[in-house]
């Protein structure tokens, strides 16, 4: 029986147990400190909470529904499958929860420009959206390989007035986009806020992103009590950097009635477990430092970042948020992985059985959820976070499956 975390996480230095911290060039220290102060002030300001509540309801369209997936449940042949519909949030993914929150912090800090990294483009779209709404200048860094894979999102960002800057270096994917955004911020932090899209990076980013995404888990707890009349036996979410999973899981780790709810993060197993063929940092990685924090990472024996692969551009990242590392080692959350092929099968299955076209990211969670449900008796329930919609993935799915 895993022991639930009892201490407040993170500590003052940004550590979740042994993980997290702030491994950044001194040039960024001031900006990170300023962000911490702005966030603490915002948290203490009732007007900020009221503003977030209003934007969540009226702009993002929250609460997103929790609904039974009857035909998927029948197909799995075991416990009930419920899905949390983050794909129905404005812009089609959970990323908007964080982008709106960080834009409000940007305004509170008096900064006029925001930058972001993006992989699948969902965080880039969310940031461009929030920037348009709040009249902020916006530049999104995106690997050129991802720009090819997620072209509709590139066009969306540009239509909303964002500058999309292609990144050619390294593998031309999410980690390289993150490098480029950090480099920009090194020179511009006095006027620019870096809107990190996941629960990664130096403290306080993992904390801030988790808190803005925790609206998912809070709603889910309330909806389960209302619609199921109890909490589910299991909750699942996909994990790349880990923001939708952190937002779903964190309230469950804190709710005194939720200690028995099994939490499962699902990582991208790619083409297999060999080095370079996947992006499953928690499943196959080791503790290491990447992009400002200490967490599970995919590195070689010299600390060089591994090549990674996933069919999903949004999960194609060699690290993971430090709180997930803490949850893994404490046993509170378990982490599984599914392959590209399993995720693609789940993608097609839910499209046909439920009329929901999911993002490839959460298709990973679904592939594992089907296994979990199949092993459950019929009176039990599993809730899956369907973190985004899949329109952006159509071209890539058609290409990969040869449809």
């Amino acid at each position, binding site marked *: 029986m895993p022991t639930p975390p009892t201490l407040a996480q993170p500590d003052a230095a940004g550590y979740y147990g042994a993980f997290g911290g702030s491994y*950044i060039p*001194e*040039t960024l220290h001031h*900006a990170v400190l300023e962000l911490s102060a702005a966030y603490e002030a915002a948290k203490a300001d009732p007007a900020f909470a009221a503003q977030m509540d209003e934007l969540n309801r009226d702009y993002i369209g929250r609460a997103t529904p929790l609904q039974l997936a009857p035909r998927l449940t029948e197909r799995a042949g075991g416990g009930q499958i419920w899905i949390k519909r983050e794909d129905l949030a404005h812009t089609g993914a959970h990323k908007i929860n964080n982008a709106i929150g960080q834009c409000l912090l940007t305004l509170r800090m008096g900064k006029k420009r925001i930058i972001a990294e993006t992989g699948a483009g969902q965080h880039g779209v969310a940031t461009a959206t929030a920037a348009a709404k709040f009249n902020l200048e916006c530049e999104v860094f995106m690997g050129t390989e991802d720009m090819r894979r997620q072209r509709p999102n590139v066009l969306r960002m540009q239509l909303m007035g964002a500058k999309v800057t292609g990144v050619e270096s390294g593998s031309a994917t999410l980690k390289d986009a993150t490098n480029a955004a950090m*480099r920009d911020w090194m020179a511009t932090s006095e006027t620019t806020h870096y809107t990190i899209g996941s629960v990664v990076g130096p403290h306080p980013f993992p904390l801030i992103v988790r808190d803005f995404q925790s609206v998912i888990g809070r709603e889910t707890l309330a909806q389960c009590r209302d619609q199921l009349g109890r909490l589910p036996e299991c909750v699942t979410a996909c994990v790349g950097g880990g923001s939708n999973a952190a937002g779903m899981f964190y309230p469950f780790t804190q709710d005194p009635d939720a200690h028995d709810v099994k939490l499962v993060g699902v990582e991208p197993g790619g083409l297999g477990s060999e080095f370079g063929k996947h992006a499953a940092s928690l499943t196959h990685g080791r503790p290491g*430092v*990447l992009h400002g924090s200490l967490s599970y990472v995919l*590195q070689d024996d010299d*600390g060089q970042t591994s090549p990674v692969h996933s069919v999903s551009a949004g999960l194609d990242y060699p690290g993971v948020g430090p709180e997930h590392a803490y949850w893994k080692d404490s046993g509170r959350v378990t982490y599984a992985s599914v392959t590209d092929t399993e995720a693609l099968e789940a993608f097609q299955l839910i499209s046909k059985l439920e009329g929901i076209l999911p993002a490839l990211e959460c298709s990973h969670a679904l592939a594992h959820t089907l296994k979990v449900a199949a092993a459950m008796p019929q009176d039990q329930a599993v809730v899956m976070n369907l973190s985004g919609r899949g329109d952006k993935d159509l071209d890539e799915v058609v290409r990969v499956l040869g449809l």
Partner: protein
Amino acid sequence: MGRLGFSTLSPMKHRIDAIFSDLQARDAKALMPFFTAGDPDLTTTADLLRAADTAGAAVCEVGFAFSDPVADGPTIEASMQRALDGGVDVQGVFDMVRGVRDQVSLGLVAMVSYSIVHRWGLERFVSEAADAGFDGFIFPDLSLEASGPARAAADAAGLTLSLLVAPTTPIERAKKIAAACSGFVYVVARSGITGARAALPPELTDRLHALREVTDVPLAVGFGVSKPEHVRDVTTVADAAIVASALIDRMQGADQPLDTATLMLKELVGGLA
């Protein structure tokens, strides 16, 4: 800079400290070139260290190639990628330094991302580096707050640890950073990433004077220091000028990179105040 006869040094005396006290006694300043170890290969890097020594550099930064150098601009990133593509690894850099150590009187400082140090293990990395003949460390992504164990490990091995002071660092914090440094303080000349620049920021001289007020630890200035005039400007107040991208840029465009580097190193030494 003269051969300083380090064989007579007591083991407790850092080579870096000896270099700076010798320079200060002569009212002279230091050139600190940076080379990415293994770009294009380690034999060339060893040649460059010998050339820097001959040209009169006092200390060399030996850069460990890293896959994700977020503080570096296009020149050093590309240089590190060439080194990695050429197959350089950490052990190879240690072996190269071991081979060249007795041939140069330069101080040799390892510039290395903490990602690499953490993977090796701090104690193991520091002791292997010391054994290879390094004299100090710069971990550009290690914060003041997290630097305690690294300083203790460096001290125990008889090596220096230099932290960075940025333009965004308030002077009170800069004072604490300087106090946590041994050997020298790395003063970042400009916000942003590494890379050659046409001019230094106008406020740099005032910053250096302010830093001089709060610490006696030697000040070494880098990021954008690209030509002899820049070297003169920064060493008018500071103790050392660090030149990296400009050297790499010049070598990249050259038919005879080693000769080109030697010539440029002499020009840069000529700029010392």
